[in-house]
């Protein structure tokens, strides 16, 4: 059963919506990890990784990655493309993308309309990153998972 993290041990979330989802998971005692894995999804001709995808959460008890995207439409398209790459390269990985409408529905369900307004008024970034998640963030574990990730190794 998940133990809630203290303020000192909580990760620095890139977006207030991520922090809120973490609180919900804590409330229902669902174990989660924040950005524990980075999946390479693009390589150059020398075999070096040029693009990665780091899902926001991993829920080990249900073996599910969760990616929150409460961003503007242009960034959602970019994230959708990355997700398609993920599903092609790592078909065994279960990942759920929560769009802005999904997050809004969660907030509605939990009576958190005030928070929803805050998130979508543009004042919700914690200032750590720009939220586009193009690659590994400082502090995240950047060890690729097994499988296709090993293709990232430059050819000998």
């Amino acid at each position, binding site marked *: 059963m998940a133990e809630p993290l203290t303020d000192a041990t909580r990760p620095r979330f890139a977006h207030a919506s991520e922090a809120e989802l973490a609180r919900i998971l804590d409330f229902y005692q*669902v174990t989660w990890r924040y950005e524990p894995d980075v999946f390479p999804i693009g390589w150059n001709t020398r075999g070096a990784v040029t693009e990665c995808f780091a899902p926001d959460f991993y829920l080990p008890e249900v073996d599910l990655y969760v990616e929150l995207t409460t961003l503007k439409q242009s960034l959602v398209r970019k994230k959708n493309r990355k997700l398609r790459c993920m599903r092609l390269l790592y078909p065994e990985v279960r990942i*759920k993308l929560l769009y*802005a409408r999904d997050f809004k529905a969660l907030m*509605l369900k939990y009576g*958190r309309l005030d928070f929803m*307004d805050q998130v979508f008024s543009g004042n919700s970034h914690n200032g750590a990153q720009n939220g586009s998640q193009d690659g590994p963030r400082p502090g995240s574990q950047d060890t690729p998972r097994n499988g296709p990730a090993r293709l990232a190794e430059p050819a000998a």
Partner: protein
Amino acid sequence: MTLHDDVSEILLTEEEIRARVAELGKELGADYAGRSPVLVSVLKGSIVFLADLVRATEIPLSVDLMELSSYGANTESSGQVRILKDLSGSIKDRDVIVVEDIIDTGLTLNYLLRYLHDRGPASVRICCLLDKPARRLAEIDIDYRGFTIPDRFVVGYGLDYDERYRNLPYIGVLRPSVYGGAEPES
């Protein structure tokens, strides 16, 4: 102005619900013939479904109720779900059927299943009226499912918004204007 005016669309009519609940009751009766399950329901949303389901199930059974705290605006940052009302009786070696009004994220049920399994039941199965799979985070194996519904905010037949609309006899989609136009974008 009535409650009905706040509903933009009736998703499931009273007749559709009644017919499906009768089918579920028959299924339960057949599957649990010769046994005496205990139906465990979570307050408050499931009470209407539970009341109709038990009357559609023609086998000996018992009923127990639980209430869990919900995540919400007043939740402490370190808050965790709490049992506000526990089971009245033991479920050890009993066949348990969890009766739920709606399963969306599955987080509440995920917690509840762990709790129930720790009390040594002979079996646990899940019977839900509404399954909203688009919202699922915790995978749940549903044994008896009334309807699979689209990703809409629904009220009625026990389901509420801000404690209202539970007494609507049907399942309806709430008008966005009721909750400040904050309905998820389509």
